[in-house]
């Protein structure tokens, strides 16, 4: 938005942004958490994701779905945090604040399943989460992660196999 944009345009833009935040904030926060395994970092990553969304929403041309676009930004943000010395250092030695206390009632299966997903290598975890948790299609995941569809399919297969090992034989539906 240029500085000279009319007030109505600004209001419309802000309203659109509020809707995006309402619609996707929880998904982004959960995905960031599951990728970073740290509550504070996940909250920071979610905020940074929406700062970027707000800054670039005028350039979004609808070539992908809103969810794909936002997830791509979120995953890139997590990727940057993952690479920083800050992340590596602090995850080694400072308060982890890892799994948040669940507000809803959980059972042993929930914990087992979530724990198994969290133990997947990041490259497999991202694909499994985007596919099963966020409901994205293979081609959308390929766009989010910037990899080929065949790579996505391969990682999905390996992720399911790894989960089966971690869950002692229980398998995810394909």
């Amino acid at each position, binding site marked *: 938005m240029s500085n000279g944009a009319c007030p109505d345009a600004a209001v419309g833009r802000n309203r659109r942004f509020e809707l995006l935040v309402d619609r996707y904030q929880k998904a982004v926060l959960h995905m960031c958490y599951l990728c970073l395994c740290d509550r504070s970092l996940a909250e*920071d990553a979610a*905020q940074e994701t929406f700062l970027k969304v707000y800054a670039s929403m005028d350039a979004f041309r609808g070539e992908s779905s809103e969810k794909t676009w936002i997830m791509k930004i979120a995953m890139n943000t997590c990727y*940057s945090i993952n690479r*920083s010395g800050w992340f*590596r250092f602090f995850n*080694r030695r400072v308060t982890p604040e890892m799994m948040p206390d669940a507000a809803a009632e959980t059972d042993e299966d*929930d914990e087992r399943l979530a724990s198994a997903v969290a133990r997947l*290598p990041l490259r497999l975890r991202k694909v499994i989460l985007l596919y099963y948790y966020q409901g994205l299609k293979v081609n959308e995941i390929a766009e989010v992660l910037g990899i080929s569809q065949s790579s996505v399919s391969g990682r999905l297969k390996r992720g399911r196999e790894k989960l089966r090992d971690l869950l002692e034989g*229980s398998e*995810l539906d394909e």
Partner: protein
Amino acid sequence: MNKRITTEQLRGSLERQLSGLKPDPLLARRVMASGRVSARKPRLLRPVLVLAVLMALTGAAYAVTALYRVVNWQGGITRTVAPPQTPDRGAAAGGARDAGEALASFISEIPDDETVFAWIEGDDGLIARSELHKKQKAFSSHEAFAQYMAGSPYLTAPSQLPDETLDYYAATAYMECKAFGAYAQTGNGQAGPVRYTRFLIDDESAVATGYSLVLTLADGSCLRIESGLREASSEEPLMLREGETAEKVAVSGMSDALLIRSADPASPDGLIMRRKLSDPAKLKLLPLNDHLEPGDGVCYTEEYITVWLHNRKDPQLLLRLFSGA
């Protein structure tokens, strides 16, 4: 247990497990108020420089294969957690590395008395990397450092160093601005790919909120001590790696202390401590760009200290550093 897990079951499990993570109802408003990409909460950025220095000194690169065990301040294991994984390598990683190097090069040229927020934008116009350089003061002798720290209301310096010849000594204190202190935003600009915002905090308004100290001894062992202030206390001081144990110990002046010992000769032993501040440190958060109003503050309530001794197994040395006993 051999059974099929449906997508709905997986979703439901994750939703319930993550139900404690609540969306921020003010997020949209805060983002719109900031108006620019770089107007982020600085929480993530504050310790960056300290850690960048430490990373450079230690070359810390940690294994991420085994599960971590989370301990409490009693030394008891509370749970195990999966470690973060190393991300994929590739062209994007190369780009990020280049951006990181450009940023590190820029930061290395900043005078000690400046506080600078610097960042690089990616091709998409979004922030690719960012770093904070804090106003700081370097010391090459422990006498000078200890004298400076004696005047610090918030930080605790080691009261006794090893009684041996030091091969190397370097300490740096990092400063922030008091809540009612004064600072000047001296400029925004761009140098090559790096954009930056610079600040000068008045000397009278600057207060040390962290330090790093590295020394090496003649036998090749290395001590690394870091102290920093934190906003909230935590019952979970750290994560143990495989082969490490934690034992609660008493250290003079500290609220809690854990002695960490590693069975691996190549891994350091350590001492993790915290001290409740009798008088919380109220500080100012500097606006990270000209779209934010100054005035946001932070209140630190605790000092958190980590000590790591590399290439030597000597828990008594660790315990003597702060107890002076």
